[in-house]
């Protein structure tokens, strides 16, 4: 659990995001106020269209809020330039997507290495980090496989390795088990819980109560507003065996 005296990693205040299509304005995110501390495992939960993905995009520096404040590690993100946001996406966050988003016709190694190509790390350092990340998701034997030769669970593990490779502050997972069978989904949740236990901050977006219960804290969002923020005393066990049952 987080220590309240510790400075928050993420602090959002009155966050709003409005989309305009011609004359029509849609308020996808009406009000979000919360802080996330280093080492937390937070699930942002809500039904489709609730604004949870919009919130994750803003937290992941892919989008900017229309109103409100987003402070990351004490820095006001609203004021950052496009290039500064790109640097943050490269160094501060690692994304895990529902549909894996691996590059086609590209090996596991090259996929995992991709974020490092936009960092300032040397070639040998890049190779070392990529190998370590692949090892951490137990896929070293698939190192030179093409992404289309992998199963769904393996693809998501490659995506986790890619998210980890640049040693980011946060892992952002958008419905990470959404495209997987229950066994592979359980394995992915176990990896995320293991990472969290090693101190990694994880923010996971899901619409499933069951998946959200693997986290330590659930932020419920509905109709664009945060309406419940609960800490889980007894989170679900990490191996996902109950999923199979």
């Amino acid at each position: 659990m987080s220590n309240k005296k510790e400075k928050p990693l993420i602090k959002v205040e009155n966050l709003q995001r409005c989309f305009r299509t011609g004359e029509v304005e849609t308020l996808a995110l009406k009000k979000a106020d919360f802080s996330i501390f280093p080492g937390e495992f937070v699930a942002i939960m809500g039904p489709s269209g609730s604004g949870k993905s919009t919130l994750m995009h803003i937290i992941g520096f892919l989008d900017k809020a229309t109103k409100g404040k987003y402070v990351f590690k004490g820095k006001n993100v609203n004021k950052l330039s496009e290039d500064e946001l790109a640097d943050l996406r490269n160094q501060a966050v690692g994304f895990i997507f529902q549909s894996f988003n691996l590059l086609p016709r590209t090996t596991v190694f090259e996929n995992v290495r991709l974020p490092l190509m936009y960092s300032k790390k040397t070639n040998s350092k890049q190779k070392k980090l990529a190998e370590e990340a692949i090892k951490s998701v137990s896929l070293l034997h698939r190192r030179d496989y093409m992404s289309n030769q992998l199963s769904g669970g393996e693809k998501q593990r490659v995506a986790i390795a890619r998210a980890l490779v640049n040693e980011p502050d946060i892992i952002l997972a958008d419905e990470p088990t959404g495209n997987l069978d229950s066994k592979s989904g359980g394995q992915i949740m176990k990896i995320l819980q293991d990472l969290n236990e090693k101190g990694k901050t994880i923010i996971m977006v899901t619409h499933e109560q069951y998946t959200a219960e693997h986290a330590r804290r659930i932020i419920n969002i509905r109709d664009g507003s945060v309406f419940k923020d609960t800490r889980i005393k007894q989170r679900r066990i990490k191996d996902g065996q109950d999923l199979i049952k």
Partner: protein
Amino acid sequence: MILSSTIKMGLKNLRAQKMRSFLTMLGIIIGITSIIVINSAIAGAESLITNQFSSIGPNIVGILPGGSEDEGPPAAVMGIVITSLKDEDTEAIRKLPHVEAASSYVSSTETISWTNQKTTGSIYGVSPEFPKISDTKIESGGFFNIDDEKGYANVAVIGKQIKDELFGNFADPLGQKIKIKKGKYLIIGVMEEQGTSGFVNMDNTVLVPVTTAQKKILGINHLGFIRAKVDKKENISRTVKDIEYLLRDRHNIDKKEGDDFTVTAVQDALQALTMITTALQFFLVAIVSIALIVGGIGIMNIMLASVTERIKEIGLRKAVGAKKKHIVYQFLVETIFLSFLGAIIGIVLGSLISLIIAKVVNYLGYDWNLVITAGSIITSCLFAFVIGLAFGLYPAKKAAKFDPIEALRYE
């Protein structure tokens, strides 16, 4: 670091789609091949013409019948028969200061026979001073003299090819008589082999005294043209003027506009020719540039399709930290590489075609040099780079502008 990875990634994408990459390059390949071939052909033609003119001899001034506009060729060049020049003009020119020698010329193509052997060759009626003006050397025997000219003598000096075709190895032609039209001509000399000079194959030529040719072969009393040799290069322009004054005086002409002759120094003609070929070169290269621009548009078209296909990839790259410039570089690397590879293939192909042209022209008996200049290769590479950059920039910028969220959602 990023650049080398970007290049690797770009090349990998091109390798994955070989056929498409080749078709994308095709416009550039055709354009660059054309540039190399055109440049080489013009340089080859220029050297051929220069050699032909130079082989006429140094410090030569040509006098053609018929006047000419300042910019245009003399009427005689167009094949119009003009009878203004006479052998007496040659004699007068010969007496001018700085003129070392002068020769009259008349010509026709006739059947030449000896016993039962026949061949077709050029008959040239020339003055006894002809060997001083041309590069012609006598291999055996001698050349006709002033008495032969004055006496309309039936004597002839034959070229190497005529000798081989009529006599082969069977007889010494000297002292034999060949038949041209109804007359028989005594062979008094055989010329050394010398190939073409002034676009005339001298080996397939029979030289006879100009008076003999006029009276007995052609039935005319005018000349085809006159050539004069000037003692020094620096006296050429002065001699050209002297000849013009002399001939105006002899032909009772008051003004330059009324000239019934044209005096040209070979050097001047060469200079004019070089100007023409240079202009032609620029013109053709300009036309070929259009082909290159069409090639560039082809590249842009394919790259735009490629950008649309890879929207999701662009979104992912941006999500993991790629900046706009990284995406621009990635697509530019691909277009510039395609253009460069196209240029290299074009240079090789163009050189091969130029080599074939040179071989064919050499086979036809002309001295055609294979000229592929560093300039044309550098120009081709530069063109390719500029086209890759110019036509790759728009698709690359378009790719870089995608919103990462929209791009990741794109199906």
